[in-house]
């Protein structure tokens, strides 16, 4: 397959305009850390990679914004903001170990997939902090939406529509993010030995407290064993995180321990182990998986998380819960029967799923995300045509025939 790797936005636009003129399908990728594993495989005549369209174009720490071209490695942006004591709010995960990929994921890739870490429960998703985009639509036209200010309701919000559209509507070329100060300290309160049901009830109690929890996860015993900071508990663990100034972390973790008295005696983990363990949760380190396993990501109301856990247990798969119980990471044998069981459980709880990793043949044959109701599917098709009239951008990535 041809790989085209332009450096400038104008060249990206030219490539797409040319493909539009000839109705040539293009696979849009960054550093391919996710595109060879996630969702449906794309059949395309050529690959357009944005990995050479790089560089931070604007960083104004006092205004809490950073803008960079889509091919910029996320790690470069994280380092730049960390140098000013700031952070990317949604705490995006690095799934390269999970997805079996090498190389550094790009800003464009993480935004196009709208992937967020544990802080999502309280601080919003990646898409919530995308305040401006530049993009090339499927006709090769450069468009922008949003800008460099934190509050902006001018016109339709294409920043959110294009975030999480997996390169099927437009090629994101430049993204402006809101950032925030990194907290001075991190602390974790841990309850050992609760099952999923009790664990999620404890997480709900913590999230319903006034103490500003910024992470809420439940790990079964074998998942906790994969995280060095938690292995000593030798049990399922229920975790909440506080990120704040040093005195507040001390105060709030103590108050949460008291809040949890009815669930058992909780332990408090200090700053360094807390940072390490939440990074592990972010990157799905707790999820045990064999090479023949497929990976799913399931989003449900938090109280439904334990029902997904039960369904996965019946399959003999592995899982853990983040987002207070509302995000379930699942690994199970890569078979259509596993998919049927997991998606049935998600649907029964009014939730949704993404097939994150599976052999090509399997992910080409399954609903990698839920099918939309027919009236909504018609709108999806018309909006796709509104951006990409020839259907050349990542065809089939989300839905077969789209």
């Amino acid at each position: 397959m041809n790989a085209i790797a332009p450096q400038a936005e104008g060249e990206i636009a030219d490539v797409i305009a040319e493909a539009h003129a000839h109705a040539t399908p293009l696979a849009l990728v960054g550093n391919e850390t996710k595109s060879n594993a996630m969702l449906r495989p794309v059949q395309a005549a050529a690959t357009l990679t944005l990995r050479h369209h790089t560089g931070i174009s604007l960083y104004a720490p006092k205004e809490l914004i950073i803008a960079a071209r889509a091919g910029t490695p996320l790690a470069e942006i994280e380092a730049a903001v960390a140098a000013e004591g700031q952070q990317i709010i949604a705490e995006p995960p690095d799934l390269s170990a999970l997805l079996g990929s090498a190389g550094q994921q790009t800003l464009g890739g993480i935004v196009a997939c709208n992937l967020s870490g544990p802080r999502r429960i309280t601080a919003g998703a990646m898409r919530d902090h995308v305040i401006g985009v530049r993009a090339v639509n499927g006709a090769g036209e450069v468009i922008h939406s949003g800008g460099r200010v934190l509050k902006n309701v001018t016109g339709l919000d294409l920043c959110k529509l294009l975030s999480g559209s997996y390169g099927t509507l437009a090629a994101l070329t430049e993204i402006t993010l809101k950032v925030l100060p990194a907290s001075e300290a991190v602390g974790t309160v841990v309850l050992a030995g609760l099952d999923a049901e009790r664990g999620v009830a404890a997480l709900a109690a913590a999230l319903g407290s006034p103490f500003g929890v910024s992470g809420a996860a439940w790990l079964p015993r074998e998942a906790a064993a994969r995280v060095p900071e938690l292995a000593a508990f030798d049990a399922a663990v229920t975790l909440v995180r506080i990120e704040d100034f040093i005195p507040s972390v001390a105060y709030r973790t103590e108050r949460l321990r008291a809040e949890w008295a009815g669930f058992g005696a909780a332990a408090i983990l200090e700053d360094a182990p807390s940072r390490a363990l939440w990074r592990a949760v972010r990157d799905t380190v707790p999820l045990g998986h064999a090479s023949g396993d497929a990976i799913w990501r399931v989003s449900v109301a938090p109280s439904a998380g334990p029902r997904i856990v039960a369904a996965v247990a019946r399959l003999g798969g592995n899982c853990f819960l983040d987002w207070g119980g509302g995000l379930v990471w699942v690994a199970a044998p890569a078979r259509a029967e596993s998919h049927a069981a997991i998606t049935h459980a998600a649907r029964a709880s009014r939730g949704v799923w993404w097939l994150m990793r599976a052999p090509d043949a399997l992910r080409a044959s399954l609903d990698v995300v839920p099918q939309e109701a027919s009236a909504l599917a018609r709108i999806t098709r018309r909006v796709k045509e509104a951006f990409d009239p020839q259907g050349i951008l990542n065809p089939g990535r989300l839905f077969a025939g789209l």
Partner: protein
Amino acid sequence: MIELPPPKPETLAARPRLIAGLRALVPEDGVIAEALCLKPYETDGLAAYRQVPLAVVLPETTEQVAAVLRFCQENGVRVVPRGAGTSLSGGALPLADAVVVGLMRMNRILDINYADRYAVVQAGVTNIGITDAVRERGFFYAPDPSSQLACMIGGNVNMNSGGAHCLKYGVTANNLLGLRIVTIAGEILDIGGTHLDAAGYDWLGLLTGSEGQLAIVTEITVRILRGPEGARAMLAAFRANEVAGACVDAIIASGIIPVALEFMDRPAIHACEAFAHAGYPLDAEAMLIIEVEGSVAEQDDMLGRIRAICERFDPISLKVSQSAEESAAIWKGRKGAFGAVGRISPDYLCMDGTIPTSRLPEVLRRIGEMSESYGLKVANIFHAGDGNLHPLIMFDANDPASFHRAEAFGADILKLCVEVGGCLTGEHGVGVEKRDLMPVQFNARELDQQRRIKSAFDPDWLLNTAKVFPLKPDIAHAA
């Protein structure tokens, strides 16, 4: 004045038949057609514009909304959605040939779930009504626009409303989980749900702030949050706008994100003090109201840090509240700002641009120069943390020349906001007010891209026609 499209003669001619048809779709008193009864619907919070609609329909269920929209599409009738009618951008301004679909009878709270921290409410529930319903358990709904006692959540969704506390808690879009919407074809669709991330395209994000261009929202699943242990405000007054702006930068740079960070300029301080007697320093050029949250000890710690930062900027006065009552007194003037300006001027326009915060001193200086040249007074209120600027332009509506000058002044301010890297509207929406300024911010290609999305939902352009998008696609670049 803003141009409105000519009414469709065939719609006006069919009025009796259309009204009879609508009467068959909703309860008996749910169609308003008498001239006197239509009068209250002729305008919204942008009262300079008025137009009596063809009729008003007040459905009570999503199914009735669907039947009304299907009927309107079949008959080629334009539709204007309306909540409480508090829009400051003319988002609910009727057209002479349009049916206003008012959601105020859909005012029930359908479900509250504390374990999963959401509430399902109908579009006609007021913003404060959600918080009132969950307050007993210590929860609240975070976005708090100034009109929160009256404005309805359906309107908040359509305008992506903000408020004084969105620096910490985000705007409407950041606090939603799901929507039930009705398309112009009368299809009822559920978007999102009770989970955080939704699959497929981000319809929730696209519909939020879409100003009634894409669909009518009838039910909303909002996130509810547990409130903090407490909150307290402080007031800091400075000798110059530049100094107050630098102080804001220093607070943010220290790693503190206060829950609110409000800036008032000298005319705003004077107007509010005369109205509310809040004890604001009249010798200051600029004043900040800063609010923090947490336990009493945490508040003390945070206010102590902020106070130390403020002291580096030679403040005229610093007042740290010691109680909820003192905090309320500090907020009293700010919250009464619109009434205060209304007291010193017969009428005012409330503008709503956003600017990069670093450009504030320059922008305020240039607004001051424009104020001189237009001969109209202006007071500035600014959400300093997020750059959202609200100049209040004072004029006399009984003097048409004064109103036209005020409109031109407002347009110049918004063009200035875009010129320095900001945008036309931070939280009030484009509506009819800023429609013709859209080419200042978007080129023709970009507007066409947005128009095609509108067409994907509403192929005949019946929903809230003549708002948001300039009437003529080939309108010259206004900048």
